[in-house]
């Protein structure tokens, strides 16, 4: 009944096959939804929203009045990833993260990959996120990206692509954990019937990984989470992770560097800190090393880090590989460092600094998605098919002025998941952000943040741009297809 008028409209639908039949792994969820009446479904939806508000699971909106909090819109219908499909994603992510770490370590040391001609030298030095202060540093295990939140998307044929790597300070994992808690309260029976892999070991894994980074711990390593403060859009997540790991949440003003070590100011005097999970951008870490006007930072932090007195996760300087021009070379990195073909493909990318690519981009602005090389969060972006002539002219001028700063990709027909719209369901476009921890070993959280563009037809899923989220269920094993299930 909810789905009587549901259309896949030629998109890849995560729940229904092209012919309209339900995918086997979504059967139980569909039955559960269909067993509800409209009132019950809406009551569940409101209950979930009220729960999120009461739990204070909110984010701050920039550009709004300071302190405006909103709940991240949450849709009850989960996105389900079959076990076999997840195995593929997991292998692909491990390969990619490993290669990215090799690349960053190489770039801040001998730059072999450049010398061997696999990547042009000038795109490295021209990257805004290249940090010369990090040259020659060797973080523990040679790992620069301890926590990654890779954005994956699926195109019309269902193929997964890596859209962005998000190596710097990826956020959203707290929503993965909290969304699951909310859904378990609302649909306990479905969890009883399906083998959904749990996500709640994430914070233990995170703590374990962070503790393993301690340079020379005396006893139990002192780990802290460094936040820009309560007005940061991801503050809820910072405090949530600190709370779940049982570690201190500190702001820059709580830390002080003395005698080469980092200390936090406590009621009983200074206490040494071994590992900082920093949720602050490179630029705001240390006014002595980066931006001198930063009030958030800790003077001397980078010297302590360079001297091996404290560990920082993620490692400063790793944003070099987040540059969208360098992103285009990740397949080359995988071939170069892993001597393998990439398991997860990149989205085909045009680099505007190449003359041929630029001409193509300028001639096809109405079909492409243009992104600036160093922005995130859906800012600085043009979605060609949804743009106005004025917007295209503006981007054409920007591209001509700073070709190094822009890339373009075909507009993908992102996959869709049924989403509650008033009293029925409509398909809405989604992406998927799995979280990867990398210390001595690489761990991929079985799940991830499914972000959904709540507006009809929209392809922009960022929370800052009106996106919402869904719980992501990774199945432990796939259900055998029933005979005669499809007519």
């Amino acid at each position, binding site marked *: 009944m909810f789905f009587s008028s549901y259309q896949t409209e030629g998109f890849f639908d995560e729940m229904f096959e092209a012919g309209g039949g339900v995918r086997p792994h979504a059967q139980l969820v569909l039955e559960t939804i269909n067993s509800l009446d409209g009132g019950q479904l809406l009551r569940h939806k409101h209950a979930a929203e009220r729960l999120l508000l009461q*739990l204070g699971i909110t984010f701050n909106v920039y550009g709004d009045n300071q302190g405006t909090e909103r709940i991240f819109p949450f849709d009850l219908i989960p996105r389900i990833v079959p076990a076999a499909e997840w195995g593929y994603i997991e292998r692909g992510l491990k390969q990619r993260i490993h290669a990215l770490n090799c690349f960053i370590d190489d770039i801040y040391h001998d730059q072999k990959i450049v010398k061997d001609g696999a990547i042009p030298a000038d795109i490295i030095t021209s990257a805004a996120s290249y940090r010369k202060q990090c040259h020659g540093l060797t973080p523990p295990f040679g790992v620069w990206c301890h926590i990654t939140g890779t954005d994956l998307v699926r195109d019309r044929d269902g193929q997964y692509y890596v859209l962005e790597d998000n190596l710097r300070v990826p956020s959203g994992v707290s929503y993965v954990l909290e969304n699951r808690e909310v859904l378990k309260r609302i649909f306990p029976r479905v969890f009883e019937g399906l083998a959904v892999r749990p996500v709640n070991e994430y914070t233990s894994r995170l703590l374990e990984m962070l503790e393993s980074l301690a340079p020379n711990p005396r006893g139990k390593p002192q780990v802290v989470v460094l936040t820009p403060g309560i007005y940061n859009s991801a503050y809820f997540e910072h405090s949530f992770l600190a*709370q779940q790991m049982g570690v*201190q949440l500190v702001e820059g003003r709580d830390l002080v560097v003395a005698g080469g070590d980092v200390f*936090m100011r*406590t*009621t009983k005097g200074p206490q040494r800190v071994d590992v900082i999970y920093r949720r602050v951008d490179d630029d705001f870490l240390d006014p002595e090393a980066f931006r001198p006007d930063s009030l958030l930072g800790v003077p001397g932090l980078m010297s302590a880090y360079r001297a091996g007195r404290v560990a920082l996760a993620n490692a400063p300087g790793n944003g070099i590989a987040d540059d969208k021009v360098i992103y285009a070379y990740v397949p080359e990195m995988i071939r170069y460092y892993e001597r393998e073909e990439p398991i997860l493909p990149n989205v085909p990318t045009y680099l505007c600094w190449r003359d041929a690519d630029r001409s193509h981009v300028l001639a096809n602005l109405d079909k492409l998605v243009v992104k600036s090389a160093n922005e995130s969060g859906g800012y600085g972006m043009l979605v060609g098919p949804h743009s106005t002539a004025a917007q295209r002219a503006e981007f054409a001028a920007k591209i001509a002025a700073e070709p190094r700063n822009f890339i373009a990709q075909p507009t993908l027909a992102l996959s869709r998941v049924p989403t509650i719209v008033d009293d029925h369901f409509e398909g809405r476009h989604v992406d998927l952000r799995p979280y990867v921890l990398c210390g001595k070993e690489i761990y991929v959280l079985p799940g991830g943040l499914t972000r959904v563009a709540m507006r009809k037809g929209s392809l922009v899923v960022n929370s800052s741009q009106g996106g919402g989220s869904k719980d992501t269920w990774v199945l432990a094993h796939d259900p055998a297809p029933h005979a005669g299930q499809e007519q």
Partner: protein
Amino acid sequence: MTHAQPLLSRVADAVYWMARYIERAENVARFLDVNHNLMLDLPKAYTGQWQPVIDTTGDSALFRQRYGEATQQNVLQFLAFDPGYPNSIYSCIRFARENARSVRETISSEMWQQINNLYLLITEESRRETPASLPAFCHAVRMACHLFAGILDVTMSHNEAWHFIRVGTLLERADKTSRILDVKYFILLPSVHDVGTPYDDVQWAAVLKSVSGFEMYRKRFGRIAPERIVEFLLLDGEFPRAIRYCISRADRSLRAITGAPAGTFSCASEQRLGLLRGELDFARVEPILTAGLHEFCDALQTKMNTIDEYVLNDFFAQQPAARS
């Protein structure tokens, strides 16, 4: 507390103020409720006694400047919902939540949720100028604060941060009790023509009810008598809103924080709090009344303010998210 986690100075400061604001909100709600209830019992000539409620806040000048006359409507608006007045119930809860938000990893999730629920309740209510039903509103705020106290007690380890919460709560409570005593004693004592009338008893009973102390007073002293009420509210060692009780428990918590044994001190705040505790432990009510209760209350408030300042100097290096 040998293996205790270190406590950030900023966090200690924030939990201390979170506690003070919650306690302040609860007291203001109780004062409003009791005064409103009293108005209903008194003959018309007495009604409109809202100025004393303003006086107990110590912010009479600000009130006069912003609202002028102490009508019921004005007082309710000022004390319940005025976002520009830092000690209104609305502001207190907002500041308490702001502080709680900055230390969510230190307090328990349940405590955070309860403060957040209280905040959602007050934001909803404060869309009006004054509460739709004053008794219902005050009751809701008080119960929410009591629930918070219970949640605090059973969900959070009684660690250093918890003791800072206790110190904040108890100093705030002692301050409020001293203010109500000071203001009410002044008003009620000169009304000799009321002595022996039912209204005298009603008004004194209201003083006790302002600190939820009526029933416990009855058990302790029975008949309503001004000196005994003063003794009860100042010097009782068992009633949780009596000043001596608050000071002795605050002293206990501060010792738990520093580890200093009784009879010694390790910092200025501890020394001042110990002195005050000793003074109250060995005081009798008669000399206080002879020398003047107002003078005593005044001195008491000064001492408690000094303790607050020393706590800040001794433990909190920096400013919390919000404070007045």
